[in-house]
């Protein structure tokens, strides 16, 4: 769920890849407003764009097969130095703990999306909710 104070951005879009740039660009713009972040804000903007893009693709891929009417809901919540991102899907879900770290020396064309999320966020979880699943990411904006 989204918080009720601080910066709270909630977006609902059809579960189609054409909306990836919209979600990613909003994440970038939010990152650029974060005065509390003392690091490289342009890098943070890219990284949030990336993790939101990957999370949304993940949600689209795990949606119910053939159902084009489903949506993806994305929520970003920032309070003080806590950044939380929630990406909700309504598909069958998957077990995040069973996704291995990629072998970066192998030339696999897939398998780097979760790796990016784990790299750029402090932690990532995926769990079932009453009516679907939520991928949650947290980052301390130190």
């Amino acid at each position, binding site marked *: 769920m989204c918080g009720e104070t601080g910066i709270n951005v909630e977006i609902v879009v059809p579960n189609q890849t054409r909306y990836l740039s919209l979600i990613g660009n909003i994440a970038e713009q939010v990152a650029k407003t974060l005065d509390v972040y003392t690091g490289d804000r342009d890098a943070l903007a890219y990284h949030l764009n990336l993790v939101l893009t990957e999370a949304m693709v993940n949600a689209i891929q795990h949606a119910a097969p053939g159902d084009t009417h489903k949506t993806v809901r994305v929520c970003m919540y920032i309070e003080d130095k806590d950044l939380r991102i929630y990406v909700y899907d309504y598909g069958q879900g998957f077990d995040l703990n069973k996704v291995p770290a990629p072998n970066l020396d192998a*030339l696999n064309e897939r*398998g*780097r999306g979760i790796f990016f999320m784990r790299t750029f966020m402090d932690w990532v979880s995926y769990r079932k909710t009453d009516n679907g699943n939520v991928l949650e990411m947290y980052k301390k904006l130190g």
Partner: protein
Amino acid sequence: MNISTEDRNGRTILNLGEERIDAHNSGELKDYILKLLEDGHTRLVVNLSGVRFIDSSGLGALLSGYKNASLRSGSFVLAGLQPRVQSMFELTRLHRVFDIYPSLREVPGND
């Protein structure tokens, strides 16, 4: 996806006219590269100078191009990576796989 190609000194240069390569257009890029290779254009240069964002599927599409060019004893070169895009290659160690040049001008035989 907005792609233009030009043949120069025995190489085919792909100029990507997109700021983002992500899961929305990476499949098209992958297919486009494969079609070029199948049509005998086996020395490819991908000009990424206009690309400011790439995700995991974009890296995968370029990796597919690299592998398919190698299978045909061809070459697959990247040029003009912006710093953030370059950092994605470094994080995933793909900068060790691809031949990467700062700009098209610096690709051997391309001046």
